[in-house]
């Protein structure tokens, strides 16, 4: 690639040159989708937290390119935790599979504390055993004071969320959730928890990396990436090799949505994310990836709109070069710090596993960006290791494609 050399870029320039055109293409596709939504029931709900920045980018894109907005937009204060409360009593299949995956090895009391956002539930001893689906369902049917308090806390929070949702949708019944991705748990769980509304999902990427059932995929699309794994021959899937880069760019420095408080004087409930001045924190205060994205979108005009797909095609190749074949400079540029584990928990996960890990290989395996970790750990022989990794991924992807082909033939 001759324009410009991403290896010499800082984060903001990387955002402007690489992620900016990619997100401009996302905005273009989102507009096309919005353009063809029929009826007057739909509302685009930009989901906290990544969706808040997607809305900022999208509305600025519409403004710069003079494309007309046809459907109302709103910020939806939601998270998997908030969605899970809507389908908790009794827990839906979507909620149970999320809990099983997210809290693997942790106790059911910890799950209860996360859902209720309380640590004073005083649950009976069986709750302190590791999560097991059938046991969890049975324990939820108990009438001990702690269990009653759990149900009450979840119902109270769910009621506040539903009031917030009603305020966002303004009587429209089709919520189109706009979010970063990947599996779309929120769409799945809201379909189960609030079935009297229609739900759809428009994500930057859609990927069933969890290997869970996908009943919601018929109504959930990845506008920029749709694949269950990285495929070396599909340049867009390189976003899946370092998904935290996309999340880090799009998630503002605001807390994940966990709780709501009732609004004063009949106002809609407010989420914990909505601290004073939260709107201004959606836009970045410091130069970085997202300020670069906004700069790229600001440079668009109605006359330059036709170049968006071509610029995006170039940018996707540059993203792949930086993420799949990084050098030391790319690793430095794309160092993001810690990422939240979320789902009501406060623990963080490091982008690169620390030296406390048993071996360099384990450090690489436990890192959020393995290719970056390879170059950090093996500055000299890293390129060879990257080739090996690419070969392994190519083999896996081919095997998976062949299996899919056989399934289709059957």
């Amino acid at each position: 690639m001759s324009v410009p050399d991403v290896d010499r870029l800082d984060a903001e320039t990387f955002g402007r040159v690489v992620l900016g055109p990619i997100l401009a293409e996302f905005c273009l596709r989102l507009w096309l989708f919005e353009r063809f939504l029929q009826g007057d029931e739909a509302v685009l709900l930009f989901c906290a937290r990544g969706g808040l920045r997607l809305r900022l980018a999208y509305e600025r894109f519409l403004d710069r390119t003079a494309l007309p907005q046809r459907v109302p937009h709103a910020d939806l204060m939601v998270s998997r935790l908030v969605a899970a409360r809507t389908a908790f009593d009794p827990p839906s299949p979507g909620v149970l599979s999320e809990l099983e995956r997210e809290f693997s090895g942790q106790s059911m009391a910890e799950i209860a504390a996360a859902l209720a956002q309380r640590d004073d539930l005083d649950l009976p001893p069986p709750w302190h055993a590791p999560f097991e689906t059938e046991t969890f369902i049975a324990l939820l049917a108990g009438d001990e004071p702690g269990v009653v308090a759990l149900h009450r806390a979840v119902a109270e929070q769910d009621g506040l969320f539903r009031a917030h949702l009603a305020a966002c949708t303004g009587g429209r019944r089709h919520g189109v959730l706009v979010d970063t991705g990947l599996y779309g748990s929120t769409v799945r769980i809201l379909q189960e928890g609030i079935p009297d509304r229609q739900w759809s999902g428009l994500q930057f990427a859609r990927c069933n990396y969890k290997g869970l059932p996908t009943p919601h995929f018929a109504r959930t699309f990845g506008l920029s990436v749709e694949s269950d794994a990285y495929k070396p021959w599909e340049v867009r899937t390189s976003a899946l090799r370092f998904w935290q880069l996309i999340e880090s760019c799009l998630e503002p420095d605001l807390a994940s949505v966990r709780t709501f408080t009732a609004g004063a004087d009949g106002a809609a409930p407010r989420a914990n994310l909505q601290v004073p001045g939260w709107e201004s924190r959606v836009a970045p205060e410091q130069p970085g990836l997202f300020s670069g994205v906004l700069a790229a979108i600001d440079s668009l005009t109605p006359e330059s709109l036709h170049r968006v797909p071509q610029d995006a095609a170039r940018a996707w190749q540059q993203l792949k070069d930086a993420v799949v074949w990084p050098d030391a400079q790319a690793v430095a540029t794309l160092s993001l710090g810690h990422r939240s584990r979320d789902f009501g928990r406060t623990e963080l996960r490091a982008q690169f596993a620390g030296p406390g890990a048993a071996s360099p290989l384990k450090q690489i395996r436990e890192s959020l960006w393995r290719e970056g970790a390879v170059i950090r750990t093996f500055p000299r022989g890293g390129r060879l290791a990257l080739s090996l990794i690419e070969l392994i991924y190519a083999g896996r992807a081919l095997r998976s494609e062949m299996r899919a082909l056989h399934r289709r033939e059957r």
Partner: protein
Amino acid sequence: MLLPKTAAARIISCDVFDTLLYRDHRSERQRFNDIAVLAAQRLAAERGIVRHPGAIYDARLDVQKQAYRALDLSCPTGDVRFADMIDAMARILSLDAQAAEILHHAEIAIEIAQLTANTVLLDWLRAQARSGCRIIAVSDTYHRGETIAQLLAARAPDHPVAQIYASADHNATKRTGALFEVVLRQEGVAAADILHIGDDTKADVTMAQAAGLRSLQVLRPKHLVFRRRADALQARALHGFRIRAAHTQRAGAPA
């Protein structure tokens, strides 16, 4: 094609594409490619606007993909209108209304060029019309009825079709059964009085029968289906090469 001697029906309803009018071996992707090449030539010649055929092709594919996905989520029984797709294409290609007309005409010109009349079926329909049968066309398409009439007039000028029902006009499709309800309501006959002829198993057979119509399936030869698939693969690969070449050209161009 096996057609009965008489239709034994008051109305014969016919699908249009690959039934009354045959498409050739070219895939939809190849057709979009041909449209893009023609549109790019006309934009340059008539308006002095330079757009790479690959960009027009990408816009056509992208618009259609997102349009039908949005439709599936918001009005699954309805259809997309071609005029709306042209409007969206023009906007994302930074073209004005006159240039949008060029996109529209390029598409219709290629459609006409690549369609042929199903003369066997049309002869049979003319005979049925002479014996008192009313002939109607019922199509799942983003084109309006008047465009279908234009295509029929161009390829089968003496066709016996008295009325055209296009899903885009009624926002109702055969594949969901909704268009058959419109046909029955407007024609004012019992479902059993209509014989529906078409190539698509779901839209023309299953859903027609579910609406109470009698149905007759006319299939294109299997070798044509395989040729179209191969053609689609070829069109995809060629487009990939062309786009890469365009990028290389642009990257190497002086600032």
